[in-house]
């Protein structure tokens, strides 16, 4: 099945084909159904230990993975540390080897710096799932977003998606551009020039600095979180100016086609990327994204750790573990 999954890890959307992504989304349907049951739990990963290694604070992603693991009956353990405390003394590899020694079958890694999940995968036999590495990738977010879009809009082919905001510092943007365009969507990046990557060579996207001009031709308006530190870094003059030009307010929401949807990876800055009144608009599917996140992560864990492995690799010979 998936090339990105054949080596037993999920490190990024990079390298995945549309078919591979769609197969994960199809599998997600099963786990979405399980999540609807009165007792949303199956024994698929009983006896397996899943460790979340979060070198950066994230309540939501961790809770989502944790919930997914528990619904699959896996045991979970948690490691949280600032990356800076690791910069002296113990190396990243040392830390990973310690966690592995506790008996983890899978490592779910969140780190503030790019490439760490890939590095860790080189050092461990455990399954590695990238839960966000710096500004690089956040593949399960892209999968849950693609699933949400499929749920609301059907096929992504030809879907017009505007990704709005701090593209350059966003792993969500990088993974979503890869996933959405692989599935045939037309992606437009909408941002002030300072919040776009320094080079877009090879990115199959359009670029606009004018949100109003884009909205009428948009089926999905995907808003990214803006960090306040972008002002001290001199990337934008003020929150006020950003909100004026790129904030999703009621007036802008009315420019969207009536069947369009509004997405946000959370947590939202109310009054910055999105006004409260728009967040409450039925076209805003932010909570669907959250719910789908659990189902998608169940599918990914099942594929990489459970019977789903048989779908991506031939079973190992008896006693040849």
């Amino acid at each position, binding site marked *: 099945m998936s090339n990105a999954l054949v080596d037993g890890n999920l490190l990024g959307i990079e390298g995945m084909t549309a078919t591979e992504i769609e197969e994960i989304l199809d599998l997600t349907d099963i786990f979405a159904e399980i999540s609807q049951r009165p007792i949303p739990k199956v024994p698929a990963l009983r006896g397996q230990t899943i460790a979340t290694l979060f070198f950066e604070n994230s309540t939501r992603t961790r809770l989502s993975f944790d919930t997914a693991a528990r619904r699959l009956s896996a045991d979970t353990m948690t490691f949280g540390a600032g990356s800076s405390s690791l910069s002296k003394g113990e190396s990243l590899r040392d830390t990973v080897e310690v966690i592995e020694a506790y008996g983890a079958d899978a490592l779910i890694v969140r780190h503030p710096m790019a490439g760490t999940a890939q*590095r860790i995968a080189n050092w461990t036999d455990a399954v590695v799932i990238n839960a966000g590495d710096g500004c690089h990738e956040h593949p399960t977010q892209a999968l849950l977003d693609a699933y949400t879009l499929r749920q609301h809009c059907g096929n992504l082919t030809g879907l017009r998606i505007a990704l709005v905001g701090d593209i350059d510092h966003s792993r969500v943007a990088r993974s979503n551009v890869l996933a959405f365009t692989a599935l045939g969507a037309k992606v437009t990046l909408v941002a002030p020039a300072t919040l776009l990557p320094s080079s877009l060579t090879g990115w199959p996207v359009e670029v606009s600095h004018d949100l109003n001009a884009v909205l009428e031709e948009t089926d999905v308006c995907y808003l990214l979180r803006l960090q306040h530190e972008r002002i001290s870094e001199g990337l934008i003059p003020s929150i006020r100016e950003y909100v004026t030009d790129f904030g999703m307010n009621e007036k802008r929401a009315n420019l969207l086609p009536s069947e369009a949807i509004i997405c946000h990876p959370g947590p939202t800055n109310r009054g910055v990327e999105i006004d409260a009144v728009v967040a409450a608009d039925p076209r805003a599917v932010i909570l669907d994204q959250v719910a789908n996140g659990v189902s998608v992560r169940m599918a990914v864990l099942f594929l990489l750790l459970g019977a789903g492995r048989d779908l991506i690799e031939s079973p190992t010979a008896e006693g040849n573990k």
Partner: protein
Amino acid sequence: MSTVIHGGTIIDASGQQQADVLIGDDGRIEAVAQNLSGDHHLDASGCIVSPGFVDLHSHLREPGQEVAETIETGARGGALGGYTALVTMPNTTPTTDCAAVVEQIRTLGKNALCEIVPTAAMTIDRLGQEMAPLGELVDLGIGIFTDDGTGLQDPRLMRRIMEYSTGLSKRLGRPVILAQHCEVEALSKGGYMHEGEWSAKLGIGGQPAEAEELMVARDIALMRLTGAHMHFQHLSTAGSVELVRAAKAEGLPVTAEATTHHFSLTDAACATFDPVFKVHPPLRTDSDVTAVRQGLADGTIDAIATDHAPHTAHDKEHAFDLAPPGMLGLETAFSVALEDSGLDLPDILAVMSWQPAIIAGLNDHQGVNVQPGAAANLCVIDPDATWTVSGQAMASRSANTPYEGRTLRGRIRHTICAGEAVVVDGEAQR
């Protein structure tokens, strides 16, 4: 005890000839002629005999970071790479910014397999705030000052140091050279690789080429103001090469070096996220690589340097952003130059031996023509031998070579340092 190098082809700055070389027990060349004999015999048939290489840019980590490298191990690696002199960078602990550390390095270097030539910092502790005691250091024979590892940010202090250095040339007996690591930190801050297509794709903060070029341009402007002699270290961008080309055309007393990695590797290597490819200045683009090769070919760049920067595996086993920058170079430099510089063999020898020897002020005994009376600092190269790079197999205490697993052409067979055969048939003799 005399040594004869038998059957090789000598290439030096004066040209090429087929002759044996007889080295006397005073460490000097006694004779260059056919059919010489001596107590020891070094076979050089099919090989090139060249003046030994001079590296303008080695980090040997001692004193202070001996876990990564020592003068002994670094010099051994240098000898295996054909070097007979290594110019060491002052970012030691403590910083090489005073007589005591210079003396310590020289003492440690006495028994090394290469001549060890310390440089000293331009500013105290390389902090870019106060001028180091340049006069005291010049009196010890220090001819190159650099804050390498960082560029000197403050243009006012740089101007003053440049002016001050011009007043020390008589004491040194030749122009004092200020060597700059060109990097405007206000632009490079938060960048861990070259800013461009790959950094955008990988989500790693980038250092724009302009961070280097602005400081090259600034220092060239200050050269006109002060008359100081400058050497630009590890030029990595097309724009920098062009600035130096124009400065040379203008007649300014400027020299420049390029590292082997800046003409053989690009930022695409960072896609592995392996910090073995993290280096400052960063690996650049294909067009920068082409420009560096062009700069070597047309004489804009005077020397190939290694920027040999050992780091332990433990220190590199971090996120790309956190790992220290730097890569090994001494044992691979010649082969990489032969493979990737685009230069002919005699031109490679020029930029690895006699041209850097002149910049380092060593040209009375390093990089000199192979003739009777000359100091015997030589290497014997088998240009057709191939070998496969292995960091573990290197003499360095570290293994962070970016060429791991690559099969390269050209191997150093023997190295003679001050008359002693320190490497014989690819093996260090002590």
